[in-house]
């Protein structure tokens, strides 16, 4: 009899805990290993804390995400973790959540309006700067560089390009011989790089604003039978890390999407429980992964 009551109380307790908090998690897309890792991190943390996490995928559509946030507001969730598809378009959603008294946490990208309890992202300007700094170091301050940029108009593209150019402008002997968009896409990067290789027999480095494009550039270089070109990418996706290990990619400015999302969930947990956080924004550290530290990185698991 006693044991039955004990089990019942335990079950009720667990149920209570998990019913205790429902958090909406709006991710911009799931078609990218970065965001897959991101979402996994959130789910893991939510499970640890006994939070009921509602994951919504906006498939890169602003209107879809707006609808999803409104949905969550209707369902009266305890908090909304938002990875906005666009920094401007999602402002009304944040404001609506504010009005409904639901705290908002933004991850990976910011919103340009409304009140946000916590903002965690990698610093994309820093991302670009790191890429360029490593490039400059490996080039010993001089050489021909190709720049492959992301989706035109995206904030990540803007910020990373800004960081890259700021650093490179300090090196008069480094020339950007080609600057083309590859839209963060591997196939596009390969095509574009192939054509660039034709026009420039003397390239020393390629800075790509993410790993997919870096990998595409690596394929192009391989297909053209060229060698000795330093490739720099970012994001830290498994394929990219493997390329660093293989030596085809020199530096991978890894982000930590898993950790970032997990932090976001725990931040939400604190905020809902009435604990005010300070500072209200956190810059996730970026890890430049090179051949020297790649094994450590893999071991640390991300």
């Amino acid at each position, binding site marked *: 009899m006693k044991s039955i009551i004990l089990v019942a109380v335990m079950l009720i307790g667990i149920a209570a805990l998990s019913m205790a908090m429902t958090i909406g998690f709006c991710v911009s897309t799931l*078609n990218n290993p970065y965001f897959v890792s991101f979402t996994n991190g959130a789910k893991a943390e939510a499970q640890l804390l006994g939070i009921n996490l509602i994951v919504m995928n906006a498939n890169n559509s602003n209107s879809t995400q707006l609808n999803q946030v409104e949905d969550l507001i209707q369902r009266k969730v305890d908090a909304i973790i938002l990875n906005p598809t666009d920094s401007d378009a999602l402002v009304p959603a944040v404001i609506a959540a504010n009005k409904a008294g639901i705290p908002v946490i933004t991850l990976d990208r910011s919103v340009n309006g409304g009140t946000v309890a916590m903002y965690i992202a990698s610093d994309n300007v820093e991302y670009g700067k790191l890429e360029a700094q490593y490039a400059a170091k490996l080039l010993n301050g001089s050489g021909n560089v190709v720049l492959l940029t992301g989706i035109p108009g995206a904030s990540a593209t803007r910020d990373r390009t800004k960081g890259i150019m700021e650093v490179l402008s300090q090196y008069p002997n480094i020339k950007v011989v080609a600057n083309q968009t590859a839209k963060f896409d591997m196939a596009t990067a390969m095509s574009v790089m192939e054509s660039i290789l034709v*026009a420039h027999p003397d390239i020393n480095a390629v800075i790509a604003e993410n790993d997919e494009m870096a*990998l595409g550039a690596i394929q192009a270089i391989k297909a053209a039978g060229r060698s000795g070109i330093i490739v720099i990418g970012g994001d830290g996706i498994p394929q990219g890390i493997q390329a660093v290990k293989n030596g085809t990619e020199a530096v991978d400015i890894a982000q930590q999407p898993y950790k970032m999302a997990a932090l976001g969930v725990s931040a939400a947990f604190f905020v809902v429980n009435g604990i005010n956080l300070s500072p209200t924004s956190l810059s996730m550290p970026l890890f430049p992964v090179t051949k020297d530290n790649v094994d450590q990185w893999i071991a640390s698991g991300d």
Partner: protein
Amino acid sequence: MTLSNGFVRKYGVIFGLAGIITFFAIESPNYFFTASNFILISKQSSINILLALGEMFVILTAGIDLSVGAIAGLVGAVAAGTIVATGNLFLGLAAGIGIGIAFGLINGVIVAFAKVPAFIATLATMSAITGITLIYTQGEPIWNLPSSFDFIGQGNLADIPFSIILMALAFVCAWIILDRTKYGRHVYAVGGNIKASRAAGIKISGVLVSVYAISGLLSAIGGIVLASRLGTAEPTAGSGYELDAIAAVVLGGTSLFGGEGWVVGTIIGGYIIAVLNNGMTIMNISSYYQEVVKGLVILLAVMLTSFGKKYWNE
């Protein structure tokens, strides 16, 4: 009447391509206008041309296939995934091609029997297939593929890139079928006047189902080449590829209303797109302008063919 509307439409594209090549040759004689660059352009156009050839079969029947890119993506993923899972290259290729033909047949059956307009039917299958690819890949790319698979998109046969050989084979087969066989005549007839074709005893549904299946098959081959070229099957591969495929077909002079088109024209259309991309990148023209130029060229081409038609019919 030698200078008929057909002449303008048919041979106009050749002049178009020649004009564009001449322009880039002048702007960049040392890099653009070389044999190795032309081989590169052929390689770069091979995936699009494979898809465009399949698309052409469908457009000739006055239909359209918006799912070619999505099928290419799914097939790349399935082929790669199967190879990784079983270690068997041919099993992977067979699986991929099988999926491509299967979805092509589904498209064909919906259009021919459920009488759903091709635009809507293939838009729907495109969405569904894109979703299936994401589910299958769980959003993660499939990589670490065996080098035997890489050969398709990266290897050479007698110094010619294998993807170019595949494209050439597809072109020859498409040309023979459309120009030289009874079946080919029926494809044109169905697009030209479906009522007359039915009255003449042509099996309309057979023709319709088969052209979509052919499109699925060629999309599958294109998808395999794409995954092989990158050494990776990406979850969103092929997205948007249908636009370039249709553009190549339209640039080549095939009418979207069905019933007329020239296989060589589609090849030329595909080359025009590839040459534009390659030339503008070599000249380091800003990416923003590249999109504008591409759009203008397609607009001009379509205007010329419809203007040509109007002018000669007066």
